[in-house]
């Protein structure tokens, strides 16, 4: 079914949305809400009891999911069905984390085998770099690797490298009797060259390698940065062939384009067209992550995602974390008219996580046309943004608590931090971590219950001054994870990927294409020509701006 408004449960949900009580009342009516509205799975706790739902809502949403054929849709996703209908492709990011020995045949090709061949190729590159065998043009070991990519080729790896910055592949290399060569990883995505300019001034061309990550190998942002990197290297050593052989690695689904650019065959890692960019971190696009954390830890990341995949595929909806996340998101956006969603990790290591999710969610579900090509008549993807929670408290929490917008929030935190077994543990850091956890819990509580969350004296004083009134009733979920590790990060990312898919199934849209970004690229090329040729052939606003840029 493509139009959810035709499902019987849709109208029931519309009607139900008009009757749902506020959070204070919901908690007063049932002081054991978490028995039904909290899921624990392998160290991940998903508490959605502060969402504006009750048992009836949950029941209706699950029935809605069944009517929309979610089970079947999940099977189709993981089995290689061409769920990306507008591009006639499967979306097999789940295959990227199948364990070794698994098999998945799609169009007579064993996808799982291909995936592991690719991982083996990655492992060779990772080892050559991190054991100091890989050498630059002058024979010195590579010390810095720059990932040049944008969107899915940048946001996921950048986020994961930041989150797992405490992990390295040192132990694995040393166990092989090799010397560990610690590689610093960097990310460059900006089209305007600012990042690259600043970065190159700190690097040594003899010891820097570049990874050009582009599924199509045509992305102008990426190729322009790659060209600048090439020129920078060529200024140090005038032998382009040698430079390309020793300083560039290419990752793309288009091997021919990599050949044309001059990426050495041994330095090419291939992608497949059934991997969407924003779902691709698990593939060779994650090479920079593997270099940073080592292949063993990268495999742990994959294993964590696979664990969540199995949970998603096998678990009944009522206990299924990604399904419930997706259904809640649909409930908030399409039925409660909550058009904003804030991601609030209470851990600095997840600094880039909200940014990563902006692409994952909004590029996937920012759609207004369904699978049949019909215009959609309800709200789909909300505006998503976020920041490290404790920082956000000093930034936009004012809006969350007292603004006019309704915002659904995801709070994310880790129970354990700063390994208490270490003898040199700084007790102060532990105190800081607990303080952060306390703030996380406090904020979701105040957002939910408003004035009711604070003590009577303060309430009395608040009631006398409207500008101190906390209205509450802002729904949120809290994702509380035992400890951040490659495995739990993998679980969390897969969780959100599957949430996005669930939402798309409920809305009857294709989450795997992104036609909305195409015209912008075409227009940009035209205007780039216009700037160079100084031609004014556009609307009055664009012409006025062009005049100033071209100094006409």
């Amino acid at each position, binding site marked *: 079914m493509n139009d959810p408004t035709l499902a019987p449960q849709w109208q029931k949900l519309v009607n139900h949305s008009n009757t749902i009580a506020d959070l204070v009342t919901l908690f007063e009516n049932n002081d054991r809400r978490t028995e039904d509205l909290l899921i624990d799975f392998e160290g991940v706790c998903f508490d959605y009891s502060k969402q504006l739902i009750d048992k009836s809502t949950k029941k209706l949403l699950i029935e809605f999911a069944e009517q929309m054929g979610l089970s079947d849709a999940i099977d189709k996703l993981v089995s290689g069905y061409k769920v990306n209908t507008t591009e006639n492709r499967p979306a097999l990011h789940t295959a990227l984390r199948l364990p070794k020995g698994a098999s998945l045949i799609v169009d007579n090709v064993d996808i799982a085998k291909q995936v592991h061949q690719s991982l083996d190729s990655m492992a060779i590159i990772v080892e050559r770099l991190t054991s100091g065998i890989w050498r630059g043009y002058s024979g010195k070991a590579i010390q810095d690797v720059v990932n040049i990519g944008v969107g899915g080729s940048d946001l996921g790896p950048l986020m994961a490298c930041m989150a797992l910055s405490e992990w390295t592949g040192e132990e694995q290399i040393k166990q092989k009797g090799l010397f560990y060569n610690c590689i610093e990883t960097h990310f460059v995505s900006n089209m305007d060259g600012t990042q690259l300019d600043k970065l190159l001034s700190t690097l040594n061309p003899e010891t820097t390698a570049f990874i050009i990550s582009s599924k199509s190998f045509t992305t102008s942002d990426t190729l322009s940065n790659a060209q600048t990197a090439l020129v920078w290297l060529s200024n140090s050593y005038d032998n382009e062939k*040698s430079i390309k052989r020793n300083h560039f690695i290419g990752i793309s689904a288009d091997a021919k384009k990599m050949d044309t650019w001059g990426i050495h065959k041994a330095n090419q890692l291939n992608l497949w067209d059934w991997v969407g960019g924003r779902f691709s971190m698990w593939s060779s696009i994650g090479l920079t992550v593997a270099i940073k954390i080592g292949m063993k830890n990268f495999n742990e990341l994959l294993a964590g995602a696979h664990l969540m995949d199995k949970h998603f595929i096998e678990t009944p909806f009522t206990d299924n974390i990604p399904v419930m996340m997706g259904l809640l998101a649909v409930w908030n956006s399409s039925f409660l008219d909550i058009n904003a969603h804030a991601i609030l990790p209470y851990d600095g290591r997840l600094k880039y996580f909200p940014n990563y999710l902006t692409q994952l969610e909004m590029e996937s579900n920012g759609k207004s046309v369904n699978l049949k090509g019909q215009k959609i008549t309800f709200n789909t993807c909300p505006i998503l943004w976020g920041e490290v929670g404790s920082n956000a408290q000093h930034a936009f929490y004012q809006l969350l608590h007292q603004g006019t917008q309704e915002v659904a929030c995801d709070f994310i935190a880790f129970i354990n931090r700063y390994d208490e077994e270490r003898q040199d543990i700084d007790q102060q850091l532990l105190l800081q971590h607990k303080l952060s956890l306390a703030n996380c819990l406090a904020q979701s509580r105040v957002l939910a219950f408003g004035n009711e969350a604070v003590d009577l004296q303060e309430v009395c004083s608040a009631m006398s001054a409207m500008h101190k009134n906390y209205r509450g009733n802002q729904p949120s979920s809290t994702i509380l994870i035992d400890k951040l590790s490659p495995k739990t990060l993998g679980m969390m990312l897969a969780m959100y990927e599957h949430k996005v898919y669930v939402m798309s199934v409920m809305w009857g849209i294709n989450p795997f294409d992104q036609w909305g970004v195409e015209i912008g690229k075409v227009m940009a090329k035209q205007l780039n020509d216009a700037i160079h040729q100084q031609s004014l052939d556009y609307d009055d606003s664009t012409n006025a701006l062009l005049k100033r840029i071209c100094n006409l």
Partner: protein
Amino acid sequence: MKKTSTQASSICIIGNNAKAVAGAMALTYFGLSVTFYALSKSADEHVRRYQFDKTLCNQWQKSLDDGSLIYCTFDQAVLPSIHFDTYWLFLDQMTDAVQQKLLDYLKYQSCDVCLSGITQIGRIESIAKQLTSENVFYIPFVFLNDASIFLATIEPRLLLIGEKTENTAKNNVVCREFLEHTDNYCLHNLKTIEFTRSCMMNLMASKLSLINELARLADHCAVDMFDVESLLKLDNRLGVGFLKAGWGYGGSTLPKENAILKKHLLDLKLSANIVDEVVYINNDQKELIFRKLWQYFDSNIASKSIMIWGAGYKEGTGRTKGSAIHNVLPLLWGHNAITTVYDPLAKDELSEEYSSDERLKFTDFPYANLEHIDAIIIINWSEEYRPDISLINQNKTPIFDAKNLLRRVEIQQLEGYYTGIGRGIG
């Protein structure tokens, strides 16, 4: 000079390394009898590793045959039942637990105690304080500048002895023998000798690292460090040693001295900038010749056949610890180059080190199959004869001389490519 003397007291040596063996052999050579306790491996194991040191091995066998050497494996349980007049403890490779066990046993003994080894400054003094005996001595092996550890030990060019109690060394049987076999010695308190040892070794390392850093400049200035070295030797403020540019220093002594000094400085929150740089340059220097080869072949070394002359860390030795061979081989193999090593002295040790690696091949002849060799890397040369330039010229094989073995006149005779370290050529 060998001296025959009547054994005046019983001597026990407890140790695990070549210095302990050399110390024992020196004493038997001087006519004394020694009981040697090897800590883990048998002393035979150490002698086997030093097969290239014929004088050491011969003295070992002779001492066993004439009964002046008794050796066995050290067993802590045996301690209470043995008593010697002098114990000589070699602390390198001795675990803290074994050290403490020995000290606990010796604490109240009236015997003399000699200590040797590379330890943090102050450690020897602290051990001496734990012992009630006033006759505690420190003999650092600062005189090992000969390929033969035995020859260097029986005629030490410089002998430093630390004394717990002033003017007691000459009464100790071990110290007395060494003092009688050197013209150049100094006695001082324990800590000053410890500090001096560390200073000496780290100064030598620093000097060589600076020379090697300057050698890189010499390459760019077309200056030959050979010439610079001979001129530097004219200034007697600089000393004549550690002025030869090359692939750096290896062995175990200097790297260990660097590491211990660095740790000591950092533990006291003092900067270790110079030590850090000395170590960095030395480690980097070991792969410098690989980088020259890499550039010569424009990074295309896959399937290139490379002959390596020498694997030992210094001339005349078969020991390869800290040698540039361990940097060069993995790099060449990592890029699928084919390697053949010529070093009769180091062959056994290398074979053991890379036992399961089929890529390690040896030759008994340095000019074997030169027509199929793409380059020669020189790391060490222990032969009594000079390399044969005419044979090299038959194929104009490029030479990458990490040891700066070839003299100017030999380089001028070469018809193929040559580069060294700071030779101003290549």
